[in-house]
């Protein structure tokens, strides 16, 4: 099955019943598969007039209780940023799939890149925090899409599936489980304030049409949901809670794979370059090279670096000019060597081998 198709299948398995999107290479297959399958699953598919309308419709549908998703790539992703900030501010659960392509601007529509990793975290204005997942195989496209829905429903936050054109368009075999755990949203208790949260910073969800009478606004709001834009303490309380909600739970939601934890030279990868690292480890099993594969990239799991106490160098192959490597640098004293490669071709084992020589 194709990666994009697997992503759509994962969404359907996780209970997604609303998709609004706009065609953009290389993510169009996700939309096409959803257009085919959703009506049969009693869901709704609508092709909107642009990406801004797509994410808007997804947020609107999410408020009626539906699990909603959209899929896009670089240029569409940039368009969606304002409404992504809106989803973060109003704590709307939704999943946004970005099958990354060469950028900036129109760039390379049919070739892969990983250039939006910092954008998914910091793309919209203001302070907020989101969750981003990075699949490295068709199986992971399925599994991580399911996980994206589970995380977005639990934490009431937009979750990004940061794929790329290689993983999106490749075909591999995958195993589809018989059933998948569907976590329902936490409901708001009647009578309690819609935006007041307990210790986990996650308020219950007041679905539209069930008598909650909630006013949802992108303006800074107080616990009742009413605008409080000229109220500095209310703004501080709200925004710090939005960030804390995700950041304080990063250990719980962390998902990474460790190989050879006692290695001195460690590759840290996410997405497509993971496959090259696997090849290098397979070709040189006795060289004691370590590998950390990040599946949840944001919120960044800095504690995963401690899994390699003897590391003398972290090598970070990325299909961009060094984005996650900057985040890694912040969290460790171990020298970080970015191995950037842009242009659409995946890193070759030889290139990674050369990087290893350079790091000795």
């Amino acid at each position, binding site marked *: 099955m194709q990666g994009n198709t697997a992503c759509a299948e994962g969404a359907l398995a996780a209970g997604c019943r609303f998709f609004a999107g706009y065609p953009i290479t290389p993510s169009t297959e996700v939309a096409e598969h959803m257009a085919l399958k959703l009506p049969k699953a009693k869901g709704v598919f609508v092709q909107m007039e642009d990406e801004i309308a797509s994410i808007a419709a997804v947020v609107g549908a999410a408020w009626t209780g*539906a699990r909603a998703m959209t899929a896009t790539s670089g240029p569409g992703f940039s368009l969606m940023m304002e409404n992504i900030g809106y989803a973060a501010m109003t704590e709307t659960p939704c999943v946004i799939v970005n099958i990354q392509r060469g950028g900036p601007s129109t760039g390379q529509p049919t070739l892969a890149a990983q250039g939006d990793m910092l954008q998914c975290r910091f793309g919209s204005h203001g302070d907020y925090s989101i969750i981003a997942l990075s699949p490295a195989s068709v199986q992971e496209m399925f599994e991580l899409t399911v996980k994206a829905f589970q995380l977005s429903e639990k934490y009431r936050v937009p979750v990004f599936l940061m794929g790329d054109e290689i993983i999106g368009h490749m075909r591999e075999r995958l195993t589809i489980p018989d059933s998948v755990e569907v976590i329902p949203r936490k409901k708001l208790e009647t009578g309690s304030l819609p935006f007041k949260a307990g210790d986990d910073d996650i308020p219950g969800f007041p679905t539209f049409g069930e008598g909650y009478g909630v006013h949802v606004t*992108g303006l800074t709001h107080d616990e009742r949901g009413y605008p409080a834009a000229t109220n500095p303490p209310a703004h501080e309380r709200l925004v710090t809670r939005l960030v804390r909600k995700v950041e304080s739970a990063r250990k719980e939601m962390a998902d990474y794979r460790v190989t050879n934890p006692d290695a001195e030279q460690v590759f840290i990868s996410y997405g497509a370059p993971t496959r090259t690292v696997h090849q290098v480890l397979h070709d040189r099993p006795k060289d004691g090279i370590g590998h950390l594969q990040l599946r949840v990239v944001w919120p960044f799991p800095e504690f995963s670096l401690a899994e390699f106490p003897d590391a003398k160098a972290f090598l970070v192959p990325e299909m961009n000019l060094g984005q996650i490597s900057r985040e890694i640098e912040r969290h460790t004293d171990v020298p970080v060597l970015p191995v950037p490669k842009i242009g659409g071709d995946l890193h070759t084992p030889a290139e990674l081998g050369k990087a290893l020589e350079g790091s000795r």
Partner: protein
Amino acid sequence: MSFRDWYRVDRLPTIYCVGCGNGTVINCTLHAVDSLGWKWEDTVFVSGIGCSSRAPGYIKTDSLHTTHGRPLAFATGIKLAKPGLHVVVFTGDGDLAAIGGNHFIHACRRNVDMTVICMNNWIYGMTGGQGSPTTPRGALTTTTPYGSGEGVFDLAALAVAAGANHVARWTSYHVKELTRAIQTGLETPGFSLVEVLTQCPTAYGRRNKLREVSDTVEYLKDHAILLQKYNRLTAEGKPVPEDMFTVGEFVRRNRPAMGVPP
């Protein structure tokens, strides 16, 4: 139940200026909604950004106050995901026609079952009085200090052309007709646009020699001409003064609609 029961009484009085037409339009909308027997638990108000879009914050129902220009897209998502909900959109002239122009065209084309109340006050009121696509030629605003040199957008005409099922235009002076037009819009399946010309004494009126609240309202009363009368006069070849605007129901038809509850 009266329309006054739909208000969030703890939030009144509103932030609107003295004599703002928006308050009147909210009254008329709630009266129309209430008279149809809708329940507040099944109704959702969606709005964009601007003075018009602060309205849902004063109404008891579930409401979504979205980003500038996009309420129609959010409302499409809500209506298609849960067609059993009644969706009413409050928007303004800039929100609908400027930044939201694309969503406006496509919502009309799709004929999604919702009612859009556009409070057209010829200006961007909330941000201090900048020009909008409906600012009359020669009018003074903060971004057209030498008089507006751009053509005026006819919102109702666009909605008719793009395929909306019901389009009407009234003013905030004609409260009874407005309420009736909104009622028709709520009942008509498919996209319904009710454009309301409202007074903005603070931002528009003050800069354009209409300082008193009653000045703009009198202007609206005197310059409104019923559509049927306008058609009759033009058919007979009689001249109609340039600055008159047509009011009334422009179209009511039965094109296939999306999101109509089964």
